[in-house]
């Protein structure tokens, strides 16, 4: 692959020199389809973007990189007319545009999947995909044609979903796929995918990439945001890096190493990450002869989880692996009393307990961070401090407010410890980027000083730096004696952190083993072996 342009200088704030040539050799000279220049946006006086530029060429996958809160989503929303820019120009197809609504950008051929799944859960899958461009007959919407068309697009993505089913009944990952299907369904010039893979499993990512490649080859310009570096390097041709709302550089992917990219994003050496790689799960330190912190027997709930046994010991990280919809979330929710179990027993430190609500679980020093940050985690209109202190305050009771001094000390401590940005405890939670919201939620639970921490996808949608911080934190907590149940779609992460591994499939536990050098492919074999349910696959003690 011969490249015709020079990469921008590392670390300099200036954009790459202008060039008139498309990024790949086999598709020569073409004008950019989108050219953003000097974009600045401030929220309430705080700049989120400052003089940022972005160029997209037809037939490329362009990765937009940056830490949490770097301004990726904001840049995208500036392009699609969600936010009005304070300064800067946007040129689409050679014409200067100032979109005033997403509808306008859509009409101009820009199709977008926003970071938070933005669909209507009360409508059917097909309706969500085709709202606003439904096929019509006799002046009215032709429902059957609509379902047919939706089915075709879903098939293209390799999805087996009933187009006539109501979207809200599907898990968040399926919803994300539907959002992608909606964006892919139109023949757009520009396709924008803001963290589309954050809740997808490997298989689905692969299928998404196939579709992306097809579209790219047809000449679509694709913007791709992801915190998974592997994915970036697998699919993208070129990338733009943002840091703190500023443009850091524009690069060819093929000419950039992972380490270099991380440096660009963080603006510092990635000491933490390397350290973590050396972190080997301290399997031997866990005393499994003692009474487990939590032990469940035959825990189950009709329609969501078959009877499951599980024990978690002090200082132990139990990783839960499984495909989408395998029942990991259900297990976590039942452990915590977020849903009530139909069957089974829960023992905490050897004593039988009943959790009829999360409060009972919290009283027994359990904590649970939900995978659905927006619906089940953040209190959007309250401040960072209030969000952080919510669980602690709730368990103290309303009559005993946390004294102002203590409040301040605790919040400051965690804002610093977790590197929450902006470091302003009075900032409204709504205005934090996704990754920072997640950190606040973690802080919320750590403040309750739990003995068992159940983390459902705590690193979803989080940048490498923050992800490393969170993983580090989990490891530290375990070393200090906390029991952790760690659920993640990212197998490497689960394997890296856990002392013991639980594998789930079709809403039941199919395997449980100590994590001594279990490899990713071992686990993959376990969780993906649906086609051949042979005896040797039966669960082992």
């Amino acid at each position: 692959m011969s490249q015709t342009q020079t990469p921008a200088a590392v670390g300099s704030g200036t954009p790459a020199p202008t060039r008139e040539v498309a990024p790949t050799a086999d598709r020569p000279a073409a004008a950019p389809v989108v050219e953003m220049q000097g974009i600045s946006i401030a929220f309430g006086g705080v700049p989120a973007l400052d003089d940022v530029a972005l160029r997209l060429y037809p037939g490329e996958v362009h990765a937009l990189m940056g830490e949490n809160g770097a301004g990726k989503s904001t840049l995208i929303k500036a392009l699609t007319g969600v936010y009005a820019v304070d300064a800067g120009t946007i040129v689409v197809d050679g014409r200067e545009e100032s979109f005033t609504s997403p509808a306008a950008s859509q009409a101009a051929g820009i199709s977008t999947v926003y970071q938070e799944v933005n669909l209507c859960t009360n409508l059917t899958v097909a309706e969500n995909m085709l709202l606003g461009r439904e096929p019509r007959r006799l002046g009215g919407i032709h429902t059957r044609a609509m379902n047919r068309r939706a089915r075709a697009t879903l098939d293209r993505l390799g999805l087996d979903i009933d187009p006539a089913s109501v979207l809200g009944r599907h898990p968040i990952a399926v919803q994300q796929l539907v959002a992608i299907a909606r964006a892919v369904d139109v023949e757009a010039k520009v396709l924008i995918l803001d963290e589309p893979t954050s809740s997808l499993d490997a298989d689905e990512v692969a299928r998404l990439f196939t579709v992306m490649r097809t579209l790219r080859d047809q000449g679509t310009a694709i913007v791709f945001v992801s915190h998974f570096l592997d994915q970036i390097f697998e699919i993208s041709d070129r990338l733009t890096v943002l840091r703190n709302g500023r443009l850091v550089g524009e690069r060819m992917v093929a000419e950039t190493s992972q380490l270099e990219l991380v440096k660009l994003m963080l603006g510092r050496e990635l000491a933490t990450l390397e350290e973590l790689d050396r972190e080997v799960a301290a399997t031997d330190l866990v005393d499994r002869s003692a009474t487990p912190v939590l032990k469940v027997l035959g825990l189950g709930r009709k329609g969501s989880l078959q009877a499951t046994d599980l024990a978690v010991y002090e200082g132990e990280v139990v990783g839960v692996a499984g495909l989408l919809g395998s029942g990991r979330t259900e297990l976590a929710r039942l452990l915590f009393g977020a849903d009530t179990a139909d069957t089974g027993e829960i023992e905490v430190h050897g004593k039988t307990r009943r959790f009829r609500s999360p409060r009972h679980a919290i009283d027994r020093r359990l904590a649970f961070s939900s995978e659905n940050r927006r619906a089940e985690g953040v209190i959007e209109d309250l401040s960072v401090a209030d969000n952080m202190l919510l669980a602690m305050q709730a368990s103290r009771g309303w009559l005993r407010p946390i004294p102002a001094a203590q409040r301040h000390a605790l919040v400051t401590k965690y804002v610093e410890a977790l590197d929450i940005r902006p470091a302003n405890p009075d900032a409204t939670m709504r205005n934090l980027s996704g990754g920072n919201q997640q950190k606040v939620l973690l802080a919320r639970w750590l403040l309750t000083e739990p003995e068992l921490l159940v983390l459902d996808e705590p690193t979803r949608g989080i940048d490498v730096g923050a992800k490393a911080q969170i993983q580090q934190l989990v490891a530290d907590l375990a070393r200090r004696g906390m029991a952790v149940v760690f659920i993640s779609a990212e197998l490497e992460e689960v394997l890296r952190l856990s002392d013991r591994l639980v594998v789930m499939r079709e809403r039941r536990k199919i395997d449980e083993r100590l994590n001594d050098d279990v490899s990713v492919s071992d686990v993959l074999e376990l969780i993906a072996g649906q086609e051949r349910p042979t005896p040797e696959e039966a669960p082992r003690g």
Partner: protein
Amino acid sequence: MAETPARTADRGGRLALLRRNPLLWPVVALVALLAINVVANPGFLSLRMQDGHLYGNLVDIARNGAPVLLVALGMTLVIATRGIDLSVGAVAAISGAVACVYIAGAPDGGSVGTAIVACSLALATCVALGLWNGFLVSVLGIQPIIATLVLMTAGRGLAMLVTDGQITTVNNSTFAGLGVGFVATLPIAILVALGVFALTALVVRRTALGMLIEAVGINPEASRLAGVRARTIIWTVYVFAALCAGLAGLMIAGNTSAADANNAGLWIELDAILAVVIGGTSLAGGRFSLAGTLVGALFIQTLATTIPNLGIPAQTNYLFKAVVVILVCLLQSPRVRHALRVRRRTLPMTAKAGVA
């Protein structure tokens, strides 16, 4: 009167702070309304002392506004949890009915003891009604508008059942005092309402209750998962709203020394909701402002006083109210404020661009 530059700058900063204060527009509207009254009737603000009692328009506004303020206080907390309570008017009627019927039937209908028992009985009834509303909303999960619509419909019937359809008149000076009495030159009604206001503000803002209420109002599920007793909190605010409504009902009954099951507190729920909204609390739940509600309630009452004071024909008072309500809400709307602010901000922005 030369001012140092530093002081002017400081003042500018404070002005900006003031401009961002959510209470600004409600207070401005209230002051404007009072000003209009003064123009129409220069003696409007004058107060006079007679027999050790304070008289005057301002006192009347506060006294007549006391029931609305009470109801609006309860409503504020209900609205903060994303709810609404349409039944407060009916609850007020029931409260007055229970008290008056008890006093009318008591052997010594004029004594202080009777009045106290009657009021306690009435308030206890209101607690039960509040528990009922809270049960429907928080346990059965029925939408608040509908859950309280049930009691709004049936409540007046219950009040009539209690009074046997008659307007029950009582002769008890202690009871009447709640509506018309004076303590230390001020009407008791004002003192009671302000007392409840202060107590509520204290409990809500000096404990964690306010924050928990807001959390439940903004995201009930997330609050539940964080261990907040969402159900208990929701239940409690409905009880509190009913209690406030009951107290208001006692005032209304005390005011005329009679329980009118049909008309006591009629449409007071709408006035209370208006007061809450004018005070800057969003009907979508979440953040609330008790001080705003106070201003809102006073505004509503001043408006009601203004219309006859200006000699506006009674037929048009609805029009007047509609226009004023829309104006105040528009001024408060973030959109409109933003538009106003953007125009003001244009200059500094271009200046910044010039520097860059």
